[in-house]
């Protein structure tokens, strides 16, 4: 009888390679990268100054990246669930499987972001802004992949899972800002600015917006919450504070998803 070597390092690598190959060669992924590149390039062609370019790119990124991160991760998870069940019945730990999936998906999305956003910015001569936006883009992608993976693990039913990510996208990109604006206008006579550092923690999209604008120092475009953050923390600590919030947005969904993944029955 042969008992296989139980060391998992190379298995882990094989699984990670498998996932990343599988994602990157998908038509969906290629189409997304090309489309992102084309859109960003087009926006930059019509931008005549740095602030206009950064804000234009940022607005597109805020709209597209969370949507693709949420939907693509969830759809890929559900479409590969049977294969994942096979992997889970092998002598590998569930943590490794979860981590491989998350890492492969995040790296693929980041790769796509760099090709689709950073490269056209470099080409059009916005190199310093491209570097800064790439750093925040890495976190933005990691956040929405983590959220989507968590939702997919929690919801066994594909329709419920995809419905939930659709609602989350709507909440983060549209609904939350609309409500926040209404609250700011309605309570403008009250000292609400002291709550802003906590309020923005609820929305990772706002965190991305503020961190991008703070780090590129486009103060005129900071908006109310960005201006408050800058006022409270200063530019440097403001960036650190928002980076901290974004790290929490990566860690918390990742860990909740992992906890459930380790416990659940397949």
């Amino acid at each position, binding site marked *: 009888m042969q*008992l296989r070597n139980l060391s998992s390092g190379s*298995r882990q690598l094989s699984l990670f390679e498998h996932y990343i190959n599988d994602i990157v060669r998908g038509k969906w992924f290629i189409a997304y990268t090309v489309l992102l590149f084309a859109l960003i390039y087009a926006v930059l062609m019509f931008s005549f100054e740095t602030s206009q370019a950064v804000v234009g790119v940022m607005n597109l990124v805020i709209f597209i990246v969370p949507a693709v991160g949420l939907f693509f991760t969830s759809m890929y998870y559900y479409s590969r669930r049977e294969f994942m069940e096979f992997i889970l019945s092998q002598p590998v730990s569930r943590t490794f499987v979860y981590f491989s999936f998350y890492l492969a998906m995040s790296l693929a999305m980041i790769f796509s972001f760099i090709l689709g956003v950073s490269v056209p910015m470099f080409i059009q001569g916005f190199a310093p802004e491209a570097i800064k936006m790439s750093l925040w883009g890495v976190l933005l992608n990691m956040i929405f992949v983590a959220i989507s993976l968590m939702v997919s693990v929690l919801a066994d039913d594909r329709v419920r899972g995809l419905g939930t990510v659709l609602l989350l996208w709507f909440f983060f990109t549209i609904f939350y800002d609309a409500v926040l604006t209404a609250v700011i206008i309605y309570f403008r006579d009250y000292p609400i600015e002291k709550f802003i550092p906590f309020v923005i923690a609820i929305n990772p999209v706002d965190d991305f917006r503020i961190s991008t604008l703070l780090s590129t120092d486009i103060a005129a475009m900071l908006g109310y919450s960005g201006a408050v953050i800058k006022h409270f923390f200063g530019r440097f600590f403001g960036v650190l504070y928002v980076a901290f919030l974004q790290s929490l947005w990566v860690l918390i969904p990742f860990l909740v998803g992992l906890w459930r993944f380790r416990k659940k029955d397949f």
Partner: protein
Amino acid sequence: MMAGNRLPLYAIEIRNLHKWYGRNHVLRGVNLTIAHGEYVAILGPNGAGKTTLMKSIIGMARVQKGKIRVMDADVKSDIRKARSFMGIVHQENNLDIYLSVMENLMIYGYMLDLTKGEARKKAEELLEFMEIEKHLWNEKVENLSGGTKRKLMIARALLSEPPIVIMDEPTTGLDPSIRRILWDRLLSLKQKGKTLLLTTHYMEEAHYLSDRVVFMHGGRIIEDGPPDALIKKHLPPYALEISPPIEPGGRPHIYTGNSLIIYLRNPSEIEPPEGVSRFLLRRTTLEDAFLYLTGSRL
């Protein structure tokens, strides 16, 4: 290798296993032992707990109460070791459909720490063993027939040379000729000393392949033994299907819709009465025994 090369007493040992999904008590105190090299089939209707039992053995469903040991490795506390003894063929097709036949085996070979050369050699041996034609080896899985996909899943399960093979309804949905080929391949694994545990809806499959069959009903094992002995234990050797039903006269019998099945010691015990539309005499099967014990069809 096992300590001192001594095999544990059982390949699989299950003691007082319970499983709940929410408030649904799916497994209710299952006890089962499987010896090395034994072929065991678990039979039962939908909802009997077969798949949950299988998932518990391979660690896909958590053990909540009771013990499962695979080659002495505790499934709850040492699942990775337990899994290293098992090759698993799931009910659903979980091959990577965008990869070729060979790539599906190779990628799994890499996960088992095999080198490229080792993985390829092993994959070729297994594809030949499972009688998958050579011209299909580089074909994408999505283009294969259901039977070939199932053969490939079995080949993949054998890649790690596991002493135990677990199969959840391996031939469901396949046509009878493919089913026969798979049975033949599975029986030839017996010569290699493998232990086989399978669930199935097909009585004929269970009878043909297994040394022992286990009847499950309502989350419990209600009977366990060699197929022929099980039939003999509960019913006489002949079954008479008769419609419309007549008075069975104290003989073992069951009603199935508009028909009656009466079990007879002697095939000539009952002469065809007048006015019956159906009068079919045959040998008693495992399905009769199951039907008689549970009142449920498979």
